[in-house]
C-alpha cells in the first residue's frame, strides 16, 4: 500500500502570494494514498529538508512528492534528502507549482490554487508507480583513442598521456604534424610553426603512455562508452620501422617522382619518401600507387641501397585491435576547392595560387627555400594581390560560414611577403576584417603599418591576363569605384572545408555531422567538445574552423573530458533508461531501428522454460542508453519501458488531473 508524503513549499512569497498553500495541502490530504502532507516556507532549506527526512522515517513513507519549484531546479537537492533518510532517491516526484502555477497565473489565485492541487495530485499518482532505481555503473577501459595527428590530436594525446592514461594515436599519413607542420610562422606572434610544433611531435613519439600508429586508419568502432573496441588498419609501409634508421639513402636514389602533397604539389617527392625533414616518425614509406617495384615488379633500387635491409616489398596491410574507453576525433580540415570562381581564372592562370601554397613557398623548409616565386616563370613577385573570402561567406558559389582564420593569416602573409621581398607591395581585397582574439587586432594594424599593404574593401569581380601579369579588377567599396591592380602573383584565401572523409568516419563512429561534413557537437554552447555519443569527443577543425589557440584549447578540453570519464573505475549513469520485458518482446527490432544511439541489440533466449528452440528479443545496453524513450513509444507490444517515465507513471498522471 502506497504511503505518500506531500511537502508543499511557500517559496517565501513566490508561491504563497498567488497560491493558497494551506488549501492545497488540505486538498492533498484528501488523496487516498497521501498519509502525510505539510507546508513549509522554504522546502529546499535545511530545516525544510529535515522535515522531509523526519517524515519519511516517522510516517513510513513509500514515496515523496515535493510541491515547489521546477524539478529542473531542485530535483537533485530533494533526491539527496531522500537518500539521506535511507530512501531510494528515485521515489521522489516534484510538482512544479511555482514556474507552472504561481508565477504564471498571478491574476487568478483560485485557478492557480486549483491547478497547483491538480499538479500535486498528478505527482502523487505518478509517484505511486515510481520504482526504486539504482545508479548504473559501467566498467571502463582506461585507454583513449585519438584519431588524427595534427596539433589537435597531438595536444589531446599528450594531455591524456600526461595523466598517465594510455593513448593510441592514429594518423593517416606517414608522419604526425598535420596542417600546422606546413605553416611557416604563426599569427599573431610570428613564432616559427615548426619550432613550437616539433618538440611536441617528439614528445608524442617518446611518451611512454602514447602508442603512435602512423600510416594507419580506424576501420571499425564497436561498443559503447568506456567499452569500445577499435579495429585499426596499419597500411603497409614496405619499410621495417624497427630497423630503419631514417638515413635517407633510399629516397635520394629512388627514380620515381611524384607531386609532393606536403608542399601542395609545388615540387616533387619520391615514391619512397618521408613527408618532411622533421617528420615523426622519421621513417620513409613506399607509396604503393607509384612505386614501380610494387606496380611492375621492376626497380628495387631502395632495397639495394638500404644498408639495414629494411625494405620489404611483401609487407601486407595489418589490422590491429585495441580496447579503448574514449575517442577524441581530430581529423582537421581540407582546403575548399576554388574552381567555381571561374571569373578569377582559377586553373587557367598559373600565377593564381592558394594561401597554403603561398605558405609553403615562404616557409624556410619549403620548395622554394622561403622565397615566393611565380609558378609561371619562377620570378620573384613584387606586386602581390591577396583576395580574402574565396569560398567563405559566399552562399552563391561557396559556403555560408566564415572560415575564421583568413583575415589573420592574410595579414601574416603580407608581413611575411614584406620580410622576404622587401620591395614588394601587398594589395588585400577584403569584405570585413575579423580580428577578434588576443593580440589579433594589433597584429592586423602591425601588418598595415609595417608593410604598408593596401587594404581594399571590396570583392574582386574579374582577373585577366595582361602580358605576363594579371590584372585584378575589383570594387573599392569605400571609394565606390572600380579599381584595377596589376599583380605579379594572386593569392586566394580559400575557405576551410571539413576533412573529406569526415562523413565516412562519422558513420563508422556512429556520430552525426552537418551538411558540410563538420562533426556535430552535442550542444553548440554547453557541450561543444562532446558528441551526442557518449565517450566520443571532438577537437580542432573537425568540428568547425578554428585557429591554433582555439584548436589547442579544445584539444585540452577533450583531454580533460577523457580524464574525467576515466576518473573512476566505473562510469556512473542515470538509471532512467529503457528496459526490455522479454516476456512481451516479439523481436520485431523496430526499437533497434529508431534508437539514435544504437543502444539496443538483440539476443536469443529460449522459447519457453527449458525449451531448446530460441527466439530473438531486444536487449538494451545500459551503458549506451540515454533514456529518450523513442523505443518505448514505438514498441507495440509495450515490452520496453523507460524507468522514471514508465507507461504506468504517465497513465497515472493522465487519469488524475
Amino acid at each position: 500500500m502506497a504511503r505518500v508524503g506531500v511537502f508543499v513549499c511557500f517559496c517565501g512569497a513566490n508561491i504563497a502570494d498567488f497560491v493558497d498553500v494551506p488549501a492545497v495541502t488540505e486538498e492533498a490530504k484528501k488523496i487516498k494514498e497521501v498519509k502525510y502532507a505539510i507546508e513549509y516556507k522554504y522546502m529546499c532549506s535545511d530545516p525544510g529538508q529535515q522535515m522531509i527526512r523526519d517524515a519519511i522515517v516517522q510516517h513510513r513513507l513509500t514515496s515523496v512528492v515535493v510541491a515547489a519549484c521546477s524539478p529542473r531546479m531542485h530535483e537533485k537537492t530533494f533526491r539527496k534528502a531522500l537518500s539521506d533518510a535511507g530512501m531510494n532517491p528515485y521515489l521522489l516526484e516534484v510538482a512544479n507549482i511555482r514556474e507552472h502555477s504561481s508565477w504564471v497565473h498571478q491574476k487568478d489565485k483560485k485557478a492557480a490554487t486549483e491547478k497547483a492541487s491538480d499538479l500535486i495530485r498528478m505527482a502523487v499518482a505518478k509517484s505511486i508507480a515510481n520504482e526504486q532505481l539504482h545508479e548504473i555503473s559501467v566498467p571502463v577501459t582506461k585507454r583513449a583513442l585519438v584519431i588524427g595527428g595534427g596539433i589537435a590530436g597531438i595536444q589531446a594525446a599528450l594531455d591524456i598521456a600526461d595523466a598517465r592514461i594510455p593513448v593510441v594515436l592514429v594518423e593517416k599519413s606517414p608522419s604526425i604534424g598535420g596542417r600546422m607542420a606546413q605553416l611557416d610562422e604563426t599569427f599573431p606572434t610570428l613564432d616559427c610553426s615548426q619550432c613550437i610544433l616539433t618538440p611536441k611531435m617528439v614528445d608524442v613519439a617518446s611518451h611512454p603512455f602514447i602508442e603512435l600508429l602512423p600510416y594507419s586508419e580506424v576501420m571499425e568502432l564497436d561498443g559503447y562508452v568506456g567499452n569500445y573496441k577499435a579495429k585499426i588498419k596499419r597500411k603497409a609501409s614496405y619499410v621495417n620501422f624497427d630497423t630503419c634508421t631514417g638515413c635517407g639513402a633510399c629516397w635520394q636514389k629512388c627514380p620515381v617522382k611524384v607531386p609532393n602533397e606536403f608542399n601542395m604539389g609545388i615540387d616533387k617527392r619520391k615514391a619512397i619518401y618521408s613527408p618532411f625533414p622533421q617528420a615523426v616518425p622519421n621513417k620513409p614509406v613506399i607509396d604503393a600507387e607509384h612505386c614501380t617495384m610494387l606496380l611492375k615488379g621492376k626497380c628495387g633500387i631502395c632495397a639495394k641501397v638500404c644498408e639495414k635491409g629494411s625494405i620489404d616489398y611483401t609487407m601486407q596491410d595489418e589490422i590491429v585491435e585495441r580496447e579503448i574507453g574514449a575517442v577524441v576525433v581530430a581529423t582537421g580540415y581540407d582546403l575548399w576547392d576554388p574552381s567555381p570562381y571561374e571569373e578569377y581564372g582559377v586553373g587557367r592562370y598559373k600565377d593564381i595560387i592558394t594561401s597554403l601554397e603561398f605558405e609553403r613557398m615562404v616557409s624556410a623548409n619549403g620548395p622554394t627555400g622561403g622565397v615566393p616565386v611565380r609558378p609561371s616563370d619562377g620570378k620573384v613577385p613584387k606586386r602581390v594581390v591577396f583576395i580574402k573570402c574565396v569560398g567563405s561567406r559566399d552562399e552563391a558559389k561557396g559556403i555560408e560560414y566564415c572560415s575564421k582564420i583568413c583575415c589573420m593569416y592574410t595579414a601574416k602573409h603580407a608581413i611575411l611577403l614584406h620580410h622576404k621581398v622587401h620591395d614588394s607591395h601587398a594589395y588585400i581585397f577584403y569584405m570585413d576584417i575579423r580580428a577578434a582574439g588576443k593580440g589579433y587586432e594589433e597584429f592586423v594594424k602591425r601588418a598595415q603599418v609595417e608593410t604598408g599593404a593596401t587594404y581594399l574593401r571590396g570583392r574582386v569581380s574579374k582577373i585577366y591576363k595582361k602580358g605576363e601579369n594579371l590584372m585584378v579588377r575589383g570594387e573599392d567599396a569605400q571609394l565606390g569605384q572600380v579599381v584595377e591592380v596589376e599583380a605579379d602573383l594572386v593569392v586566394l584565401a580559400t575557405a576551410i572545408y571539413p576533412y573529406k572523409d569526415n562523413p565516412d568516419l562519422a558513420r563508422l563512429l556512429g556520430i552525426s555531422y552537418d551538411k558540410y561534413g563538420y562533426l556535430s557537437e552535442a550542444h553548440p554552447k554547453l557541450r561543444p567538445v562532446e558528441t551526442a555519443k557518449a565517450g566520443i569527443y571532438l577537437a580542432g577543425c573537425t568540428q568547425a574552423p578554428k585557429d591554433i589557440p582555439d584548436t589547442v584549447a579544445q584539444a585540452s578540453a577533450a583531454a580533460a573530458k577523457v580524464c574525467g570519464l576515466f576518473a573512476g573505475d566505473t562510469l556512473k549513469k542515470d538509471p532512467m533508461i529503457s528496459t526490455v520485458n522479454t516476456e512481451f518482446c516479439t523481436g520485431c527490432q523496430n526499437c533497434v531501428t529508431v534508437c539514435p544511439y544504437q543502444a539496443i541489440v538483440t539476443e536469443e533466449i529460449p522459447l519457453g522454460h527449458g525449451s531448446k528452440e530460441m527466439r530473438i528479443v531486444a536487449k538494451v545496453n545500459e551503458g549506451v542508453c540515454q533514456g529518450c524513450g523513442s523505443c518505448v513509444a514505438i514498441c507495440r507490444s509495450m515490452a520496453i519501458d523507460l524507468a522514471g517515465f514508465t507507461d504506468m507513471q504517465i497513465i497515472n498522471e493522465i487519469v488524475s488531473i
Partner: protein
Amino acid sequence: MKLTTYSTDQAGLQAFYEAIIRAHDTYGPVEKFGKFDFKKVNSLSECDPESPIPRTMSVKPLFFPKSAKVMKYTATSAGTELSDTAEDPLAGKRVILGVKHCDARGLQVLDAVYKWDYIDTDYEKRRENTILISPRCDQAATHCFCTSLDYDLETLDAVDVAVINGADRKIYLQARTEKGETFLKENATGLTSANGSAEAEMKKQYETFAASFRLKMNYQEINERMQGQFDSPTFEEVPSSCVSCNTCAFVCPTCHCFKISDEKIRDKGVRYKSYDSCNNVYFTLMAGGHNPRPVKYRRWRQRAMHKFVYYKERFGVNLCIGCGKCTTSCPVNISIFEVVTKVASSMQE
C-alpha cells in the same frame, strides 16, 4: 397445457406489433452494417421481426450485456465509499420482438447457471420483466442444428408469445407461458380468438421445418461419447485453422464467461462486468504465471467439452443450442457441429 391462441393476418400482425411498440418499451432486430442487433425501437419500420437467422445477433446482450456496471466507488483518504450504479437500464418492463427460438432457448439454458447457487438478481429481474415475442422459423439456415438439441414443440415455452405462420397466410399468436398469456390477453385488441385450432398446423409447419435441416446429430450419443474424449488427438487436428479470435464466444447466445475490471479516474472508480472468452490465451492465466491452456487446441477442447459435456453434467441441459451463430461469424467457418461429431466419432475408429 391449455394455450391461448389468436389468429390474424399479416396486416393484423403488423398492427399488433405497432400497438405493442406504442404501449411498451420495445426492442427489435435493427439492421446496422448488414447485421441485425436488438435495439430499442420507436416504430415498426425501424426493425424487422422476421430478420434472417444468419444475420441476426443473439438477444443475450439484453440480459447479459457486453459490459455492465457492477458498482461505483470513491476512494479518498477518508476511506472508500461504494455506491450503487445508476438504475439498470435493462431492468424495466419491456417486450422484445423477433427473438429467434434458438435465442430464447439459449436464455432458458442460461437460467440454469444464473439461478443456481447464487442468484444473479440483475439477470433474474431482466428475465422477469421481459416478454419475448418470437416468430417461428420456417426454414433452417446453413449452420442451424437446433432440432438435434431438444428443440421440439414442447420446449417452445422458451418464448412468451409464439408467432406461427399457418396455412392461407393465416398467422397465429400463441401464448406459451403464463406471463405471455397475460400479456397476450391484454394486447389482443383486433385479434381473433382461435384457441385449439393452431396445433395441427403448427405440427405440419414444424415437420417441414425439421426437414429443412442440413445438419443433424444425436446429441445424447455425442454427449456420452465425448465424456471419455478429453485426451482425444482429434482435438489437436480439427481446429487447426482457428485463429483464436473469440468471436464464437461473443456471439454465442449461451456463453456466459465474464471478467471484472475497474476503470478509475482521479478518485472515482467504476467496476464493470464484461464478456470474456475461453478462447482468449490469457483467460486461464493465473497469478503465478501458470496457464493450463496456453495452446489453441486445449482452449478449443474446453469450449467443445463445456458446450456438450460439462454443462449437461452439472445442470442436465446441453449448453450448445445449435443456433450456428458461431460458425456463421467465424472468419474461417469452423463448425462446432463438425468438431464435436468428429471427436465423438474418433472413438469408434
